[in-house]
């Protein structure tokens, strides 16, 4: 995500340029879906939350004070939408616990254990894991939506992975050593 062109798109979108806003939506759709998925634990609901976030952004865009903060701003809207959706669907996620996805028959034991371990993470940690491993978003893209440095992202990610590994070790996966 190039900051300059993002800024230009935001400024043009604020002036009512629909194409610029659509381009912003295209660029930030992946990260928003990842954020929604981390909260809701469901891909389709996450996409709903991301689209609702863009709808609210379209209405309230003139309130954005700094064009280079668009990613963080729309991410905050998306989190609120996802939490609101979680409450509506009565999924117990607002306190940070992701609803366990249904397991398909024959799913491997390790994969399920990792999913359970992900559920144990704090929302902030789970969000960065989803952003990183959701279609391999770059640190630059993650930085644009979290508003923190790449170094901070790396630190947050490493802590999350250590917690996951610790959880897995406690549940019989002795070979996990990070």
């Amino acid at each position, binding site marked *: 995500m190039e900051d300059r062109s993002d800024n230009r798109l935001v400024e043009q979108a*604020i*002036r009512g340029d629909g194409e610029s806003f659509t381009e912003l939506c295209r660029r930030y*759709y992946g990260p928003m879906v990842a954020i929604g998925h981390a909260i809701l634990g469901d891909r389709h609901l996450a996409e709903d939350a991301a689209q609702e976030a863009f*709808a609210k952004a*379209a209405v309230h865009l003139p309130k954005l004070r700094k064009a280079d903060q668009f990613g963080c701003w729309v991410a905050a809207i998306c989190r609120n939408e996802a939490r609101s959706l979680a409450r509506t669907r009565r999924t117990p996620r607002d306190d940070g616990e992701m609803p366990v996805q249904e397991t398909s028959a024959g799913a491997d034991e390790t994969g399920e254990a990792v999913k359970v371990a992900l559920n144990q993470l704090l929302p902030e940690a789970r969000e960065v894991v989803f952003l990183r491993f959701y279609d391999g978003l770059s640190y630059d893209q993650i930085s644009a939506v979290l508003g923190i440095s790449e170094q901070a992202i790396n630190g947050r990610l490493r802590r999350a992975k250590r917690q996951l590994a610790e959880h897995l070790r406690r549940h019989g996966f002795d070979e996990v*050593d990070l």
Partner: protein
Amino acid sequence: MNEREDERWFDEQLERAVNGSTPVFDAESWRKTHAGEYEILLARHDRPDGCGVRSVWVRRAAGLAIAAVVVMGVALFFVDGPGSEEPVPPTLPVVRSATEMMTMRSLRLAYEQGGEEALNRQLDMALDRLGPRLNGLTTLRVVWDLDG
């Protein structure tokens, strides 16, 4: 497994657990399902630079400036306005030379503002500027002479 292999294996597990695949934004579908919101965005196009990030601040600053001017105006009106009971000090005529001080207009102004005392003061000041004078020469006599 060594640490690096362990991390790679763990990353693969996480990718599978997250189960992400590239989400594609369907713009057409979004515009249809959120037509109202999209129309609000497009409606700003007609406004002449009325909704930019910068113009929001400019408008706020202009509003604050106007409000400050109004408040100052009201405050000055109550402090110095016609309702004030503070007596306005008489303004003394600004004269530059003895000749100016001795014109009928200047003398009348001094008399109207301060009576005989002011008149005499102004005459004395005029005489001081004219230079040394004889002792016993009255102000009235000088005025006679000046008026011819």
